[in-house]
């Protein structure tokens, strides 16, 4: 018996090792990016690839990105502002709507939910032109408020949180009702605390998606002082397209903070996508 166990474990260990190698190869583009961002320009494309820079130039590269011609601190601040505020408004709006659709019996509920759900089928790009016109007309073009509102009404968030509210037993809410609590109190004191893990998942995902969004800022912002980090990296690549060490330092600046958010919240993110995606 013990011999068998040992054998199985060894095989598993071997596969794990092989898969680790595959995983490292899979992540090589990131490794290359980080390594290149630490190098002096002349050594970026030397072959064979030097994964550990021969001449360290990290400080100068990152200084050039962050304090050079383009105001990266400002772009960063704009991204943080837009991502945080979008996350807060979107989570609030979705949590309210999801509770309404799951736990309140109002007239036309199914029909209204179906309408909201159906809007998912519309690819966002088909809306760009008219959203752009609308924004220019009502004065939301070239504002952060406009950008935040664009991602605040999420069918995904509403749908996902609704699924979780559905899992709360009605008896629990009924007894609170008998005690005289209204829906707002039930929502705040009972329902919301129960779906906290789902809220965390959605909040992390929303933050990541907003941070990485390039298309909306590209179309709905014009003033450079409003640019987000994604527009900043693209602008930087245009300006320094031939200086690869600097381009990589800019890319690292855009990717790494998010990778950290993800690695910290990975359990929430992965479980959330699995739960929402498959078990439904």
């Amino acid at each position, binding site marked *: 018996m013990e011999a068998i166990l040992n054998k199985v474990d060894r095989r*598993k260990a071997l*596969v794990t090792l092989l*898969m680790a190698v595959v995983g490292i190869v*899979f992540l090589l*583009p*990131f490794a*290359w990016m980080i390594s290149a961002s630490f190098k002096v320009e002349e050594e*970026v*494309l030397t*072959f*064979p*690839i030097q994964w550990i820079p021969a001449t360290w130039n990290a400080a100068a590269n990152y200084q050039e990105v962050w304090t050079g011609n383009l105001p990266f601190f400002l772009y960063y601040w704009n991204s943080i502002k837009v991502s945080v505020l979008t996350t807060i408004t979107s989570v*609030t709006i979705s949590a*309210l*709507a999801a*509770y309404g659709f799951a736990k*309140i*019996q*109002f*007239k036309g509920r199914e029909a209204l939910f179906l*309408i909201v*759900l159906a809007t998912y089928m*519309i*690819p966002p*790009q*088909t809306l*760009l*032109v*008219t959203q*752009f*016109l*609308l924004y220019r007309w009502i004065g939301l073009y070239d504002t952060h408020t406009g950008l935040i*509102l664009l991602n*605040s*009404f999420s069918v995904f968030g509403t*749908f*996902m949180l609704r699924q979780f509210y559905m899992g709360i037993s*009605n008896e629990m809410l009924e007894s609170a009702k008998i005690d005289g609590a*209204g829906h707002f109190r039930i929502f705040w004191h009972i329902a919301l605390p129960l779906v906290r893990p789902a809220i965390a998942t959605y909040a992390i995902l929303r933050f990541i998606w907003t941070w*990485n969004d*390039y*298309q909306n800022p*590209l179309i709905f912002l014009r003033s450079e002082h409003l640019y987000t*980090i*994604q527009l900043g*990296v693209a602008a930087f*690549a245009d300006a320094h397209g031939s200086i690869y060490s600097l381009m990589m330092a*800019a890319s690292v600046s*855009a990717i790494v903070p*998010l*990778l950290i958010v*993800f690695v910290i919240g*990975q359990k929430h993110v*992965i479980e959330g*996508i*699995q739960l*929402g*995606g*498959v078990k*439904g």
Partner: protein
Amino acid sequence: MQAEAKSTQVQAVKTRKKKSSLNGGWKENVTGYLFIAPMFIGTSILVIFPIIASIVLSFTNWNFVSGFKAAEFVGLKNFTDLFSNAVFLKSLGNNFLLLLAIPVGLFISLTLAVIINKYVYAKDWFKVIYFMPFISSTVAVAVVFQVLFHPTKGPINQVLMSMGVADPPGWIADVAFSLPSVMIIMIWTSIGFNLIIYLAGLQSIAPELYEAAEMDGASAWYQFSRITIPLVSPTTFLLLVTGLISSFKVFDLIIVLTNGGPANSTLTPVVYLYQQAFLELKTGYASAIALVLFIIIIFITIIQFVGQKKWVNY
């Protein structure tokens, strides 16, 4: 955006209606409307109104700089122009070629999922590794691959040349290889999502099936092809459809990586729409492109609903 849409799609398919036992009354009605009001009003203004306006605009030759008065009803002219325009047809063709990346990506994802599910330690770490490209900034990823794919000096071709490939492809600079380059990046970024969903799907397969197969002496390949593949077919179908739909939404990657070039070899309808609407300022024409895209996606969605019952092997 794309990721979000993908997940929603996956979820939407799984909707189940359940009745709440909390009973109505006018107070219940008003409270209900208050709870959903922000979401519903926002969606109406930012999605429902724009899609209707977009349909109307697609029958005009308007450009938004010249004001509403200059708008003229032109009937189906935008659409006939569109389908006799070689550039637009090329972009549609490119997008259909991009679809080839999806089955390849799914096969890789499923293979990895099977291995990670059963044969490795530290599963969670593998999930994190493969998920990283999916949550990374597309702009930064595109910038990195621009350098990696550099035809003469890029690391990828340097490695190929050192392995004896005398004339490696020019990747994004080469008309014949630019679209495959985009596909490679698309596969690389989508494996994480597909893998996670596949892992959840694999967990629902009863282990007894494999035990029985093993007792009968079935090989690993036999188990994979005769048990795993048929039993995850609902997941595969779902991921295939969401993949098809999201391939019509690829924007950030192409804009930053190639901007549709060289020689329109990576132009897709979405990128073309962007160029027509915001660079050429042809509002009506761009709305017509939007409508065509919309119809394609609706069409795929209908196939999904029909196909789900017919082709999926439970």
